[in-house]
């Protein structure tokens, strides 16, 4: 952020969960226009988490985002094996993403437990990948179910 100290590009991040890993978080220069456009930090956190989750899923799993649907508060992302030729939502897995602006490992695990509990409570039949992204450390947790 121009004029303010903050995380620098290239910061190492821990990736936990089904596919433990470490990765570098990098980004292009942030302009004042970008800062003005993303003043809503909740929205910025959610969409930033979606972007990180999309990259993680693509790098760590056989799947990639192939479809979207609308759920009122935002998009619902759907995954399929790379190269899949199914249409719409047939044989897709669902991507559940949650972002935390600044937290610790405990916050990440609590958010993950909430997401996984939701999934279990409904006796879910759809395949699902849950990704929690925390921007303070930064760190992430990807769980495949």
């Amino acid at each position, binding site marked *: 952020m121009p004029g303010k100290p903050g995380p620098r590009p290239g910061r190492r991040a821990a990736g936990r969960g089904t596919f433990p890993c470490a990765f570098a978080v990098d980004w292009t220069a942030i302009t004042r226009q970008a800062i003005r456009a993303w003043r809503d930090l909740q929205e910025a956190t959610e969409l930033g988490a979606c972007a990180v989750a999309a990259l993680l899923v693509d790098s760590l799993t056989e799947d990639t985002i192939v479809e979207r649907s*609308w759920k009122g508060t935002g998009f*619902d992302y759907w995954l399929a094996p790379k190269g899949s030729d199914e*249409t*719409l939502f047939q044989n897709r897995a669902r991507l559940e993403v949650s972002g935390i602006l600044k937290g610790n490992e405990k916050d990440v695990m609590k958010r993950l437990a909430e997401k996984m509990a939701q999934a279990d409570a409904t006796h*879910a*039949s759809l395949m699902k990948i849950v990704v929690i992204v925390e921007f303070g450390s930064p760190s992430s947790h990807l769980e495949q179910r």
Partner: protein
Amino acid sequence: MKRASELHDKAMARIDHALIERARGKSILYQRNLREAFQLEREAALLVARTDLEPSRSVLLRSAAALAIDSGEIEEARKLAARGLQGNPPPEIADELRATLGRAEAELAKFKELYPTVRQFFLNSDDLQHDANRLAQIAFRNAYRELRPASLPAVLEVADRVARKERRARRDRAGMRVASRHPPDPDVSAAQSRRDVDLPEPLHQALADFPDQVRRCFLMRMERLSFRQVARSLRVSVDSAKSLWDEAVLRFSNLAVPGFQDLAAIDEGGEIKSDTTRKPMVGAGHQRG
């Protein structure tokens, strides 16, 4: 499925546009894009709704129902969510459909509670009472899009805006009808103006020799169109319309056409004053500003 997939892709692209417009603070464009997304997603969902292709069927119906709520189409949201539940949706999508259905039903209950008051608002207007039902529904839909949850004072505030917009639209439509009676063809225009515009015959004769735009401007003003309506009809600026009017008045004055002074007297008596922007000042010119 291919057609449904294409429609769905277009709907999602429309949402992208809507979100960009929202980030720019353009709420009208945001809502327009969202409504278009809803129409496309609804069409896609209804194509797949006839099949038993799960989860595509229920996901599309849930997505269309969510867009219906965002677009203020609450009754449509209820129908789409209910239809989604009629199939065999995966449990988590069924939960989301039930949540959407519950939300739509709660909004419809609120609509039923507030509707009589909002309808009465329009029934109290002499000029809008015949359209009270339609306008009350528009007010609710707009209020829901703009502010959720919508309280009665908020809906009445929106209803007031709807009433003003409806009156403006009616004035414009009336203006276009009058303008269509004064086409550019001088022969047709002259014949029609003799029939429709009550002027002394010497004025009609003199008008036949006026430049087309000047003649049409004068006749439209005689039919009580505002300068803004005349300008829109002639595809000129409001200032140009005022200049055309000035020219017509000047020509009549120079020609000393019999009957023109009587027309001025009529005007001074307040006969020609429908204009919302200014009153025509026949024979005396008018002040700009």
